């Protein structure tokens, strides 16, 4: 299972980074979303994999490690805020530059 999860994390990182290297803002946003999943999964996995052991005092022991979970929980929400910020930045860039290229290029081609 560890090997599978590690491979998935690697795949998500690769897909996310490839998209981030693209030139269209929307691709970059998608890439950030994928990279965000990968990062959260990695952080989560550092607490090791435990099934049916939620960190609720009434239902154990044993418990899954609650600390990475707490960190990931806030990371998910902040990750959303960052994605939203990038999306709005892309919109603003389109409004100001008339382009969806990350470097603000091909203005003519776009219009």
């Amino acid at each position: 299972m560890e090997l599978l999860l590690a491979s998935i994390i690697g795949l998500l990182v690769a897909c996310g980074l490839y998209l981030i290297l693209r030139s269209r803002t929307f691709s970059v946003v998608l890439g950030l979303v994928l990279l965000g999943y990968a990062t959260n999964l990695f952080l989560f996995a550092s607490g090791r994999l435990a099934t049916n052991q939620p960190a609720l005092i009434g239902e154990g022991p044993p418990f899954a490690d609650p600390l990475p979970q707490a960190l990931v929980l806030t990371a998910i929400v902040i990750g959303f805020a960052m994605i939203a910020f990038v999306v709005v930045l892309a919109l603003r860039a389109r409004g100001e530059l008339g382009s969806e290229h990350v470097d603000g290029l091909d203005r003519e081609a776009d219009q």
Partner: protein
Amino acid sequence: MPIGSIILLPLLGALLPPLMVRHGRAVVAWSAALVTALALLVGLWHAPAVFSGSDVSSHREWIPMIGLALSLRLDGLAFLFVMLITGIGLLIILYAYYYLPKDDRLGRFFGLLMLFQSAMLGIVLADNLLLLLLFWELTSLSSFLLIAYKSNTRVARQGARMALAITAGGGLAMLAGFLLLGHVVGSFELSEVLAAGDLVRADPLYLPILILILLGAFTKSAQFPFHFWLPNAMAAPTPVSAYLHSATMVKAGVFLLARFFPVLSGTETWSYIVSGIGLTTLVLGAYIAIFKHDIKGLLAYSTISHLGLITFLFGLGTPLGAVAGLFHLVNHAVFKASLFMAAGIIDHETGTRDMRQINGLWSFMPYTATLAMVAAAAMAGVPLLNGFLSKEMFFAETIYHSWVGPLEWLVPAVATLAGVFAVAYSVRFIHDVFFNGKPVDLPRTPHEPPRWMKIPVEVFVALCLLVGIFPEQTVRPLLDISVASLLGTTPEYHIAIWHGFSMPLYMSMIATVGGILLYTQRQRLFAAHDRWFPRTSGEAAFQYSVKRIRDLANRLIAKIDNESLQRYVAWLLGAAILVTAAPLVSGWQIFGGVALSPLDGVSLAAAFILVVAALGTVIARRQRLFALIMTSLVGLIVTLTFVHFSAPDLALTQLSVELITTVLMLLALFFLPGGPRQEVSRWRHWRDLGLAGIAGIGTAMLAFAVMTRPSISISDYFLATSKPLGGGQNVVNVILVDFRSIDTLGEITVLAIAAAGIFALLWGLRLAVPTHDLEGRRWAQDVHPLIMSMIARPLLPLALLVAVFILLRGHNLPGGGFIAGLVAAIGLILQQIASGIEWTQKRLRISYLAMIGVGLLIAVATGIGAFVLGYPFLTSATLHPEVAVIGEIELASAVAFDVGVFLVVLGTMMLILENLGRLSGASPPSSSVESVSEKT
């Protein structure tokens, strides 16, 4: 009073003048004078101890790891300088008050002047090498700011930059020298370094130490070939020139020579370098001074020359050389300060400093002329004035030095030549300015300056005479104690006006007669100078190298930076891979040894879906809607992963964030139709694929390595104390709102900032609303279908109810503020989608910005509540009230904190989506449909 207050008074006092600006110029000047006078008094208060031969010192650790300590020592040398700095400082403040224009409110000027004064006092009092360096650089900085005081002129800015580059650069060399010195001695404490002279001189590192420290001293004291910054620093207001650039700061380099005299002097290397440079500077400065038409330029080169003289004297390495050096240092400070002040008065009264225009001022301002002439005579070394005495000692010291070898006659000859030049420029100053016919085209008709402006000049000139006539009674005791702190003992010496007919006297006479003769031949001299003197100078070389460096930087930047964000990302990624890969490939064990957990079919199937969806996102990124669906699919599998691996809170969070993200992206898609396909070179394609692939494989290896290593977690503490201390059973939530609540507070603050940033970015943004969707179809007319809005409405109270439920149970069961905020947001967003933003806003008059603010306030207030009760910030309290019917409920203060989290999350989500939604709200169909839904 502790001696630290000598530094601290002006340092804190630097704040006073800017604060006093409202009360007028006089109060500003008085505040600066008061601080300086207090520092002077503290110095005098310690005078009995210093004169009795015992040093006053204080010591306090600052950063012991690097050897930096707040060590201060007031010995004879430091005392002499404290008196010079504060005494001259007082007179400068008085002078500056009259000198600077009436519309200058003086706050900034005196603030900077006090800052400089504090730094300069720090240099002389520091008993720790690193502390000394700190003050050293601070003088460079404050000098930079003061030279650039009239920052609207180009000359001032250029002069300031040059001075900073040279002196701060020398400071860096000095830092290296200090570090080596500290390494050799084993301590950065100056008193220990001074006691280790033999050790240092025998060390193989002696030469580098010497050269590096001398670089610092020579740049600061404007020694050849670094002298050129000083004339350029004359762009500063004249009080600054008088104070920093003749009396005190430029003496810091010479002070350093005196300070390190016991450690570094006494070798032939020292003598050759220091006295060689000193002698060169002495002659060169004196020679150039003759040809300067600008009064301040003449004085600046004269200062360079005199600094060279003092450097030469210290370079000799003899006790009497050190005495003469210190004596001339004091004398020069006095007569040069008064000359600069006189030059300032002349500039002030005539409106120019050009000696070709200023002539015959004797008839306009005879009193000032008399003062200036006496000071200039001291500069030339005329008997009965202080300059004569130290110059005699200097001439005496030039004779008989075996280390010069067969060129023994050369040093006295060169010294006499410099004396000739000094007399020539002094005579030129007197004759050209006060006599020599009538003034030429003066911008103003000169008068005597205000009474009080002359007082500082009078004091200095009186000192010139007093020291010149009664040296033994006035300056001798001060000189004795400062020499004693250099040499340990006071050597036998005698200061007198008349020594009988001796070699020094003949040299003085030659210099005086020669100088006057030289001046009478000035026409021929000027012509010869213009014809023969080389044009290239240190200044030109400096400007040239600065230009070359700038050009090189520009070329380099142009080569590596094409201002493409894409390229930045690629570089960043490449660098990150390199840094991470180094340990990964060097024989590192990936598998950590912990047994793997078994694989099951469902997981495999889910993984398969995720792989397809992730690859689908990449491949179908141009079919944007499809790519978005694929991404959401990945998100759902991630949610399921959390469910599977015992993280119900995470699953709930991920699921609700997933929903909101999708809505957000759909809104964005509306405005991002995508352009024509970008042609990407094959190389770029493979490069990106390679970078992403390597990064992915590396991350997978890391993740696998982490998961297969034994887990050592600090979570046992949280698990054990969650119930007794945090009063909750859901450990994840207790960590968030209790154990690590200060982190959470930071995180919701970040959320709030992001929301505010988005709000600002969207402010005033106008985007063309597309009429067709991505496939070129027209948008549907019915934007808010009736059935949808009808179904959505009853969902809102249900969603809010669920949200409150999740919020309250969060402490014990999966849930909490984050998730509850997200769920409530989904309920509200649903209304906006179904019935329109206008419609929702009409019924729900909520300012989401205010909601975020209130949420943050509640969170902070819970923390402060604990503060008030005497516990650390954010300590939680628990109550267990018995309530009828429901039974015992736990009321942890952490729940209030969670309410804050809830409000911030909800406010953030709504603020973002509402403002984004508003962008499309202007499209015409929405209003018509709104009226339809109004009727229903």
